[in-house]
């Protein structure tokens, strides 16, 4: 709780992590209890941070860079579509690969090195085959990197405390994204769009350094994949197929698909409405609309992780899902640009719940299966499908019926997701005995 309430400075002193370590020891004794060291925990913090930095470089700057390199819009669109497809299709194989790996650190290191090399490729040769290869490899590496970070987290702290850990990951990822977007935006503006990719590649160094601080001995490979030593090897995936696990997993995937179907296009749509309404301040307002949710995520994620361990997942899921239709409706009726930025606070709440709850609930559901990362890949695929359809849905609706109706339609989709969570999603928090501490 104290950790959650301390804002961004909880890292520096080291007392925050120490306090949590003490709490781990105070828990009821159990065999094979995780004892993550401060070095490992801080290493993970910064690894998440630098990975977020690196990934930001690949986000919006690809399109800007290729445009500046005199690529046609057709080619840029094609390359990005292929990259998106690979990112979607690769989710499940990526998760399965991480599940099969015995050293998550090694997998993560390889993925980061590949991404760094891709950034250099981009910067050096903006020609079609090179860029296409880089985009495909980057998508594939990202499919591995996300699950690897989740696995390292789970392997380090164990399922009882992984909620807080995921909260902390979300905080550092959000800060990393925000700072990197600002810094790379400045680099792109003052130097060149190409320089952004050199910076991205250079961030490979600190990311690997942070990874080196995570002590491999403290990552229990069984724990990291949601498995336990008691689990005898059976037919592949049989443990995941049992109805008590599969049902919540599928409900959860479906709900989050609806979530992203409603969520992904909301900010871009609002951005284009803002560009139409205000010229002087549009850029600043859109920047604020991107930054405000990031700040909220950085502030509240650890609290959400902690709260999820204390009171359960359902109330927070409902909170995150309720914020989304409300936001859609407010976007439809609010016209004052400055109020819109305030409405974006809701985006932060949804995003924080999303960032913490996806790995956490999947970890709950797959406890004792050894398929944590594969299941994460299944949910990731569902989310990816929702996100890619979202733009189409929003674009079509706003072209034909106007942006207000489009916002209402997105809100309606989100409301269906909320209703499903309310009606169908069970509480997945492990039993009370785990929370006595």
């Amino acid at each position, binding site marked *: 709780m104290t950790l959650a309430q301390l804002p961004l400075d909880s890292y520096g002193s080291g007392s925050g992590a120490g306090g949590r370590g003490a709490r781990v020891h105070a828990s009821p004794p159990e065999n094979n209890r995780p004892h993550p060291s401060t070095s490992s925990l801080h290493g993970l913090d910064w690894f998440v941070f630098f990975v977020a930095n690196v990934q930001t470089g690949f986000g919006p700057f690809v*399109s800007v860079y290729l445009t500046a390199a005199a690529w046609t819009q057709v080619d840029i669109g094609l390359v990005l579509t292929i990259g998106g497809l690979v990112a979607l299709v690769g989710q499940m194989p990526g998760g399965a690969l991480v599940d099969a790996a015995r050293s998550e650190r090694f997998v993560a290191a390889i993925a980061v090195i590949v991404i760094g090399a891709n950034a250099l490729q981009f910067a050096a040769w903006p020609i079609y085959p090179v860029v296409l290869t880089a985009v495909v490899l980057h998508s594939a590496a990202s499919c591995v990197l996300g699950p690897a970070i989740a696995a390292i987290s789970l392997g380090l702290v164990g399922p009882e405390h992984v909620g807080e850990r995921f909260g902390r990951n979300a905080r550092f990822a959000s800060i990393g994204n925000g700072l990197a*977007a600002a810094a790379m935006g400045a680099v792109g503006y003052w130097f060149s769009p190409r320089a952004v990719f050199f910076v991205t590649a250079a961030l490979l160094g600190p990311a690997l350094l942070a990874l080196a601080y995570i002590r491999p001995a403290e990552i229990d490979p069984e724990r990291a994949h949601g498995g336990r030593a008691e689990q005898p090897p059976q037919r592949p995936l049989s443990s995941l197929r049992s109805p008590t696990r599969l049902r919540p997993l599928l409900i959860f995937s479906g709900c989050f698909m609806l979530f992203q179907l409603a969520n992904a296009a909301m900010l871009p749509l*609002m951005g284009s409405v803002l*560009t*139409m309404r205000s010229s002087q301040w549009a850029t600043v307002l*859109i*920047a604020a*609309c991107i930054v405000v949710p990031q700040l909220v995520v950085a502030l509240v994620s650890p609290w959400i992780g902690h709260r999820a361990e204390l009171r359960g997942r359902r109330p927070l899921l409902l909170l995150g899902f309720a914020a989304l239709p409300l936001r859609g409706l407010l976007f439809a009726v609010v016209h004052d640009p400055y109020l819109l930025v305030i409405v974006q606070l809701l985006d932060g709440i949804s995003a924080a719940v999303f960032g913490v709850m996806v790995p956490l609930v999947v970890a709950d559901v797959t406890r004792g299966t050894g398929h944590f990362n594969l299941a994460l890949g299944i949910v990731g695929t569902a989310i990816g499908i929702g996100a890619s359809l979202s733009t189409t849905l929003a674009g079509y609706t706003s072209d034909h019926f*106007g942006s207000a*109706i489009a916002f209402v339609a997105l809100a309606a989709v989100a409301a269906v997701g909320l209703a499903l969570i309310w009606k169908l999603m069970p509480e997945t928090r492990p039993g009370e005995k785990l929370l006595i501490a």
Partner: protein
Amino acid sequence: MRGQPRWAVALAAAILVAGTQYSAAKKDDRHKAHPAPSAPAAQTASPPAPAPPSRPPANPQGAPGVQPSAVVVEKQEVQTILGKAVRSSAGEDMGRLVDVVVDREGQARAAVIDFGGFLGVGSRKIAVDWKALHFSPSDPQGSTITLALTRDQVKAAPEYKDGGPVVILSALGDLQPMPAINPQAQEK
């Protein structure tokens, strides 16, 4: 599917470049229209390179028999434009030029610029009148493209969409009706 548009673009660009070089050379007699020994670097780039061998000739009536000729244009006289930043006359950032719209005769009618937004969020492609663009290849700061419209004037412009009618924003006409376009009522 993917080889086709690139070849077409390359071919169109080659034709465009060849055309501009030709016309620029015709109306500018300060430059020698034929092999100028003073500029060997530019010269080597010019010969019949723009004719991809595997394609049917772009001008079927003349290509095989006509001797290709080379034109040398100083770099202060011409510039490439795709992907270049566009600024308003007041110096505002107007985005990048991403495409050119031509009519049946091949005359450039409009430029498509990717306008506004931040980090890719909220940016929109809009078509602006070709005549509203001013090119200054000789600018020592690096070639720039200036648009005779301000951000305020283009902010309400409808999005340029491939395949639909193109709404071209002009600097010459009266722009008063533009802000009245209600983004919600804008059909198709």
